């Protein structure tokens, strides 16, 4: 699509060169998300249909979570992202820090079955500053050929190098990893966050991680994680379920998901405070979190929609691969974003130090 720019002065061109900003802010929107298969699913189910119906072009930017880039943009007054895809712990903290615009849930369209948005979105997926999109999950995934005999099936197996030899993949951030380490060490799921809040519990989790440290390869992004698994660099890895599912169903990679004690979390769309395109950003969010786009997204990545009205539109074969499918969800644990907000700083630093030591 060609965008007509009404006035391109040399000053505007210079500004464009310096800021890489969109040339015609009037009909463009910049959306930051997590890249790879996940962003691809958003493009197909949300960005492209939105552009087709409104003529607003969408510039997609990859980032890797966290609030650093956003904080820098908002505090320096050079906001170049309009909409961001954020996880709950970042949404909550960013909202309190004034990084996001408030969103009134009454503005959201009703579900396609006529149920008002407030009742249609599952509990917790509407936030003062964001609108939920998908439920995704931290799971373990393994290369099927790496374990010719017995297959790993439980969290404990990740730490059992004797029965299940092979290198382990771990993310460079501790979310869900410390929870698993404690559970594998015998802590029950309902006790995990209470134990992890004590210094002894934290030491215990790190001690458990120490047992696999020498066999671990660390990844930064979901795309890297899939590459490590697909190339056989690691045999068993902490993973995001949707990306693994895409590698299985689209690229025929010999990977398997372990649903045992999956730790699920949600993603949200939020509008960056101070964006010049607030109206368009809200239009986009209203569109993208509608019943149909959310249901469409499951065709491209196995993350569950947060609207109840989207459920009936999902093909049964796809529904079975979602984290929320009953057979996968039996002993799932909810990621405690509030807990991570109050304890995360010290733990993140310690994990980063542990990683390099």
């Amino acid at each position, binding site marked *: 699509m060609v965008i007509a720019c009404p006035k391109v002065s040399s000053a505007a061109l210079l500004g464009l060169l310096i800021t890489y900003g969109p040339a015609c802010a009037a009909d463009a929107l910049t959306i930051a998300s997590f890249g790879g298969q996940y962003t691809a699913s958003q493009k197909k189910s949300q960005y492209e249909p939105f552009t087709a119906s409104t003529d607003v072009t969408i510039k997609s930017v990859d980032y890797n979570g*966290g*609030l*650093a*880039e956003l*904080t820098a943009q908002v505090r320096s007054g050079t906001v170049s992202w309009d909409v961001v895809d954020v996880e709950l712990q970042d949404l909550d*903290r960013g909202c*309190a*820090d*004034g990084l996001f615009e408030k969103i009134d849930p009454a503005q959201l369209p009703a579900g396609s079955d006529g149920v008002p948005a407030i009742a249609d979105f599952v509990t917790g997926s509407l936030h003062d500053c964001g609108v939920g999109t998908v439920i995704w999950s931290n799971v373990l995934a393994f290369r099927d050929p790496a374990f010719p005999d017995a297959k790993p099936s439980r969290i404990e197996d990740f730490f059992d190098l004797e029965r299940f030899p092979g*290198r382990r993949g771990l993310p460079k*951030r501790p979310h869900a990893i410390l929870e698993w380490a404690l559970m594998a060490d015998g802590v029950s799921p309902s006790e995990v966050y209470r134990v992890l809040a004590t210094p002894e519990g934290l030491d215990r989790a*790190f001690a458990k991680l120490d047992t696999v*440290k020498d066999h*671990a*390869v*660390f990844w*930064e992004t979901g795309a890297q994680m899939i590459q490590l698994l697909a*190339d*056989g*660099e690691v045999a068993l890895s902490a993973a995001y379920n949707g990306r693994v599912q895409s590698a299985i169903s689209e690229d025929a990679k010999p990977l398997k998901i372990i649903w045992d004690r999956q730790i699920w979390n949600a993603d949200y769309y939020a509008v960056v405070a101070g964006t010049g395109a607030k109206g368009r950003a809200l239009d986009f969010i209203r569109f993208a979190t509608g019943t149909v786009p959310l249901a469409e997204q499951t065709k491209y990545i196995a993350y569950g929609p947060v609207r109840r009205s989207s459920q009936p539109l999902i093909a049964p074969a796809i529904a079975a691969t979602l984290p929320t499918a009953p057979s996968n969800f039996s002993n799932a644990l909810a990621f405690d974003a509030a807990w991570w*907000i*109050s*304890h995360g*700083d*010290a733990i*993140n*630093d*310690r994990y*980063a*130090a*542990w*990683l*390099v*030591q």
Partner: protein
Amino acid sequence: MNAASPSRAGWALVLPLVAFIAIAFLAPIATMLLQSVHDPEIADLMPRTREALARWDGISVPQNGAQAVTADLRAASAANQISRLAQRLNRERSGFRALIDVTARQLDRNPDTELAQIDPGWSDPDLWRLLARVTSPWTGQHLLNALDLTVTADGAIVRQEEARRLYVDLFLRTAWVAALVTLICALLGYPYAYAMAAAGPSLRALLLFLVLLPFWTSLLVRATAWIVLLQRRGVINEGLLAMGVIGETGRLDMIYNMTGTIIVMVHVLLPFFVLPLYSVMAGLPASYVRASASLGAHPLRTFARVYLPLTYPGVAAGGLLVFILSLGYYVTPALVGGRTGQLISNQIAFHMQRSLNWGLAAALGTLLLLAVLLLALTLPRLAERGGLRA
């Protein structure tokens, strides 16, 4: 005003460059140096507490402290800054966030509540000593932390607890890697540069092209190419396996560790060694070597006593360039370094991008900058002296 003097015209011509250097180079460095010791965030959010605690004896719970904190928290709450303050204080002591959140919420409901009634934490003199320290906009904390040191509640400087000790080891690791990469570059680059200087024109052009080709290729492309070659199911391992050199369980770990970092860094930095060395070698008259030979020196003696000393300036220039570039290496270790191949710059990036602890990032950057400056000032002199003596 009819004719500017040539020197003034000259100044006008270099002015854009001077301005560019000042804006794009000096100003950011000055900001970084300042940020490593100046952190006014808490002081700005708690001005009354700062003032009250500035005149405190540091022993008992301060008289007017609670009043000042109450006023500051209410002001921060009104300005929607509680979360920011809580987050910042939490970095100084884990659990501070919860204390601030609870206290601020209670004060919103009833502004006259005593702090000690809201949470017994407020009667702890250690907490007040911490507050007195962190409400000062000037801090040596970040520089101490960057050296794995910390300040206890009573003001003594001690080493960090073991789980948090990190940076001294990383600085040493970075220096060691830089030295090793420089040495390998020298061993590989010296013969190569010599071959270039000694070759005929067409071979020289080919050799030069082979050095420049990777030089012109994107860093990311080269790192990815190395991943394809070196990984466990990569070209080299598969080749060795097919030849029967290694077994299925004996696959070599050549990437996502220190080995990977060093291999790729050498590859990326080799041109920086070869090119300055070559330019020195190409400028050497062949007559010196011939003179030495005609006076009866063995070729090895000629090389050791005549040729090698004459190329010292090139070795020093290339070596210094490679060493200093290595100290700041970031992208390569991030891509192929795995866990054990991380360098100090990766930690700086971590604190800039993820933990948002810009003060610590600035302190680490300041120490790195000082180390580089020290080397840049002393090494050429050392090399010069060595060259003169030879």
